């Protein structure tokens, strides 16, 4: 059965889910939600996601929202298919969780605010707050320094294999590098650069980029 994914293919949080579904070779159908038209705040959509955010999924009768919960579900459901995105032992899984939390709490807000000020608001014809953007950038420099240190000790964030912890970063880093002019945050750090190069060249991610460019 095809998984229905509600959300625009170009938005970061739906991409987090789609990258995971592609890694696990799960068939999906994207039901586009027009954020500019405010579709995500309308009553129909609120039935899928009461907080009015994308994405939400429907898998037969089963419904979920929150992109990080969705990827954990599919990584678990299809544990034995495709790459192991969760880790093998309890300890490995804990490290995957740890770096997923880092993405959610130490990384995401800074990237979100930076991209909002530098990319999204200007696209909507509004003025971004460049002081806020600068503060976010400075904090991100420190976060990436920590990632550089971590990635000098292992090829991926939680260890020697690609997991949900790395996958969760893909959409945000793409925004930084390709849309926000912040590529230097990555390219000036040897290990972060190598890591981004590797994870952005995964066939599943490249396939997603191809689908998103239509």
């Amino acid at each position, binding site marked *: 059965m095809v998984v229905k994914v509600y959300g625009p293919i170009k938005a970061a949080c739906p991409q987090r889910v789609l990258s995971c579904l592609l890694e696990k070779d799960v068939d999906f159908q994207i039901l586009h939600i027009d954020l500019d038209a405010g579709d995500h705040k309308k009553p129909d959509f609120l039935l899928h996601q*009461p*907080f009015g955010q994308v994405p939400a999924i429907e898998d037969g009768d*089963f419904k*979920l*929202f*929150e992109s*990080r*919960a969705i990827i*954990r*579900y599919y990584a*678990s*459901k299809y544990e034995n298919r495709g790459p192991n995105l969760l880790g093998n032992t*309890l*300890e490995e*899984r*804990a*490290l995957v*969780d*740890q770096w*997923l*939390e*880092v993405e*959610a*709490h*130490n990384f995401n*807000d800074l990237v979100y605010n930076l991209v909002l000020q530098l990319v999204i608001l200007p696209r909507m014809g509004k003025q971004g707050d460049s002081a806020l953007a600068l503060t976010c950038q400075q904090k991100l420099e420190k976060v990436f320094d*920590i990632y550089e*240190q*971590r990635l000098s000790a292992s090829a991926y964030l939680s260890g020697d294999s690609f997991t949900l912890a790395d996958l969760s970063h893909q959409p945000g880093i793409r925004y930084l590098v390709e849309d926000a002019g912040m590529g230097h945050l990555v390219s000036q750090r040897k290990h972060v650069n190598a890591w981004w190069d590797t994870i952005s060249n995964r066939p599943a991610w490249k396939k997603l980029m191809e689908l998103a460019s239509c």
Partner: protein
Amino acid sequence: MALKLYGAALSPCTSRVMTCLHEKEADFELVPVDLFAGEHKQLPFLAKNPFGQIPALEDGDLSLFESRAIAAYVAEKFKETGNDLIRHQSLKEAAEVKVWMEVESQQYHPAISPIIFQFFAAPLQGNAPDQAIIDENTEKLGKVLDVYEDKLGRTKYLAGDFYSLADLFHLSFTYYFMKTPCAHLINERPHVKAWWEDISSRPAFQKVASAMNFGEKGN
């Protein structure tokens, strides 16, 4: 060998983990980290969490940080003892728990945390609580709680009719919130209020709450 948890008894993130440890009846030792002396921003603590935040856990060779990841690890490691927090026997129930764990992390926490900061932490830095920040976040939190009110009118707890890690994750920050003038946001929503009274009266949380005295005289 007992687990070592590095943190502070009055810290909500440390308390999040300790509540989970008590629910699972797991032995642990709390190793105090002196926040007021900035111990968490220096070595050796930085080796345990390079982001300089408490808590951190040591279990033999395994070193972890991020309170939600630590709690999830404890709930998984000790899944056969104490109270079932993660519904590991059912993939779908486990997924529902994860949805509402994410909701706490992505919706609830960003609204409630600045309010706690303004009332409890700002005064320590010599600042009065910033009413604009409080107002902005009580408005956000109110909308989140409207969603909770609706959900808790349909299920007894957030992920279903069973208590889970998703409910537990809300305890420590909400406990401090209830000591502020904004507590009415919880009290004026009957299902949310009933849920709060239920989950905060659990013995595992009661053990931890007694030490959560940030902002009181002498602390």
